[in-house]
C-alpha cells in the first residue's frame, strides 16, 4: 500500500554536516603555474606593444600599466592561495557534493541518479604531478556539471569506480 507520511525537516540528511575531503595540495602548484604563464604572456605583450607602438602617450603611461598588471597578479595569487583550501568534495550514499570559492562560495550537490556520464581528464602538468580531473556530467547545459580538479590520480580512479558502480545499480 502506498504511504505518504509526514516528513520531519529536522530529520532529513543534511549537506552541511558531512566531512569534506580536500583535493591534493600539489594542485596548488598547477594553479600557480597557470597563472604565472598567463601573466608572463600579458607582460610580454605589454613590452612588445611598447617596442612597436611608437606612441608617446603609451610610453608615458607604460609604467602605470605594468604596475596595474603586477597588482592584479599579486591579488590573484593571494586569492588563489587563500581560496585553495575551499576546494573540497564529499561523497554520500546517493550523491556527491563539491564546494569551492572564497569570495563566492558554492556548494553543489549532484545526485547519482542524475549522472549521464563521467570522465577523467589529465593535462600535461597534471600527468607530471600524478593528478587528475574528474568531470561528472548531468543532463542539460554545461552549468549543471561537476568538475573536481586536482585529485590524486588514485583517488580519481577510486571515485570513478565507485560512481560507476552506483550508476549501474
Amino acid at each position, binding site marked *: 500500500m502506498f504511504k505518504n507520511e509526514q516528513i520531519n525537516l529536522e530529520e*532529513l*540528511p543534511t549537506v552541511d554536516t558531512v566531512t569534506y575531503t580536500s583535493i591534493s595540495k600539489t594542485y596548488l602548484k598547477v594553479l600557480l603555474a597557470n597563472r604565472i604563464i598567463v601573466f608572463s604572456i600579458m607582460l610580454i605583450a605589454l613590452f612588445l606593444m611598447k617596442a612597436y607602438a611608437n606612441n608617446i602617450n603609451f610610453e608615458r603611461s607604460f609604467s602605470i600599466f605594468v604596475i596595474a598588471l603586477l597588482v592584479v597578479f599579486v591579488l590573484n595569487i593571494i586569492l588563489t592561495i587563500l581560496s585553495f583550501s575551499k576546494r573540497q568534495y564529499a561523497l554520500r550514499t546517493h550523491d556527491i557534493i563539491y564546494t569551492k570559492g572564497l*569570495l563566492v562560495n*558554492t*556548494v553543489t*550537490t549532484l545526485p547519482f541518479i*542524475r549522472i549521464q556520464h563521467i570522465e577523467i581528464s589529465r593535462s600535461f602538468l597534471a600527468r607530471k604531478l600524478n593528478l587528475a580531473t574528474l568531470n561528472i556530467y548531468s*543532463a*542539460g547545459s554545461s552549468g549543471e556539471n561537476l568538475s573536481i580538479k586536482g585529485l590524486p590520480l588514485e583517488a580519481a580512479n577510486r571515485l570513478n569506480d565507485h560512481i560507476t558502480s552506483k550508476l549501474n545499480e
Partner: protein
Amino acid sequence: MNDFDFSSPSRQSAKGVLVLFGLNTYKFIKRSITLLLVFAYSLFQKGSVFGFSINKLILLLIGVILVLLVKAILKYLNFTFYISKDDFHLSTGILKKETVLIPKSKIQNVYIKQNVLQQLINVVQVNVETAGDKSTEISIAALHREKAMQLKAALFSNREAIQLEDTNETEITAAESNVFFKASIKKLLLEGVSQNHLQSFFIIIATIAGLYTNFKDLIKQFKWQNYFGDWFVMDKESFLKTLVLNAFIFVILIIVTFLVSLIKTVIVNYNLKVVDNNKTIEITKGLFNKVSLNLVPSRIQNIQITTNRIKQYFGLHTMNFKQAMVTKKEQKHFAIIGLGKQQIQYLVQRLYNKYNKELEQHKPEHYYKRILILKTIPVIVIINGISFLAIDHYFWLVNIVLIPYIIIAIYWRYKKAYYALDDVYLSIGSGGLLSTTKELLEIHKIQTVSITQSIFQKRRHIASVKVATSSKVVTIPFVKTEEAKTITNYLLYKVESQRLDWM
C-alpha cells in the same frame, strides 16, 4: 483513409524534390548574396562580368540551376526512413552515407511545419527531435499531411500503450480532443503592441549594421552626395539641418521598430490554436511558417509564465515551456501568448495536476534590497559620467530622474520576488518595475542543487539556492543560510528518495 506502412523503407513525397530544390536554392542565394550583387552591379555598369557576355552568363546560370536540381533529386532518392518495433531509422547522404537510429522512447518532440513553398504544393515538413544536441535533429522535408499525421502517431505509439496500461482508462482510446484556446486577431494585435519594443529596436539596429558591412563597398560606389548633396553642404543652417535629420531618422526608427514587432507577433502567432489532446497538448500557429507541435507533459522541464503591466491590464499572459536541450530557435515555438488568467490556471492544472496555487509565498531577506542598490552604483556612475561629458555643469540633473527610477524598480523587484515549495512543485516569482515572471518546476526533474554565498552574505548568514533542471537554472535569492540548507536537503531528499525519471 489508407494506412501507410512504415515498416519498410519509404521515401518522402515526390514533391520533396521541389522542396529540397527550393531549400538548396535559398541557401545558395543566401550564401552568395554579396557576390551575386557585385555581379549584378558590374553587369549593369559594364554589361559584362569578368569578360563574360550575357549569353554565357545565362548558360552559367542554367548550369548552376541544373546542379542544384540534380543535387535535390539525388538527395531525394537517397533519403529513406522506416519504423521498426521500437526505433525510427533514417538513411541519408549522396556520397557520405549516414544511418540514424532513434529509439522511440527517446523522441522528445515531433513538429509538423509548413513554410510558404510547402503550403503552396500542399506538403508538410516533419522534424523529429531528441534531447541530444542539434546534429541529431532529423528533418523530413516533404510528406503528405495524412502520412505525416500517421508517422507522428506511429512514433508516439509505444508511449501511449504504456500510458494506457498505467491509467487503465478505456475512454482515452476515444481520444477526444477539443480546441481549448484560440487567439483572435485582436488579442494578437494587443500582444504585439504591448511587448518589449526595445528588443526589436536592437534587432533592427543589428540588422542594419549587418547589411551595411555586407554592402559597404556597394554603397560607397553609389555616390550618395549626388542625391543628398544639400545635406552635406556646410552653411549656417547645417547644424539645425543635421539635428532635424537625426530627429527624423530617430522617429522613423521608432515607428519601424513598433511596426516590425507588431507584424512579427501577428505573423509568428497567426491563427494560434491550443488543442487539448488528453495526453498531450497541441500548439498550432504561424502564417508563412505554419508550425504544429505536441507538448508531452513528461518532457516539460520548466514552465514560465510572464506578463507586464500593460499586458496585465489587457489580461494577457505568455506561457513558455522549457524542454531539455531544445535549440533557441525551436524554443520560441513552445510559447503560448495571449492567455487569460483562467486559461493559465487551466493549463497549469492540466500539466501539473497536483499544483496548489494557494501555497505560502516566502520572501527573500531585506538584505536583498541593499545588495540590489549596491549593484546599481556602477550604472549610476557611468550614466553620470556620460551626462557630464554631454551637458557639463548640470550633469547631476539626470539623477533627479535616475535615482527615483532605481528606487521604484528595486522596490518592485523585491515585492515581486518570492518562492513557494510543496511536495511536488517549486515555484519562484520574480520581476521588475514592468514585468512579472513566475517559474514552475516539478521537484523530481531537478538535476543539481547548489548553495551560493558571497563573503558579504556570509557575515549576515544569508545564502541563495540555485536549482538546475536540464533546461534551465532558477535561483531562490537571499534566504537565511539555515533556510537555504533546509531547502537543499529537502529537494535532494525528494529527488533521491523518489528516484523518478526526469524525462
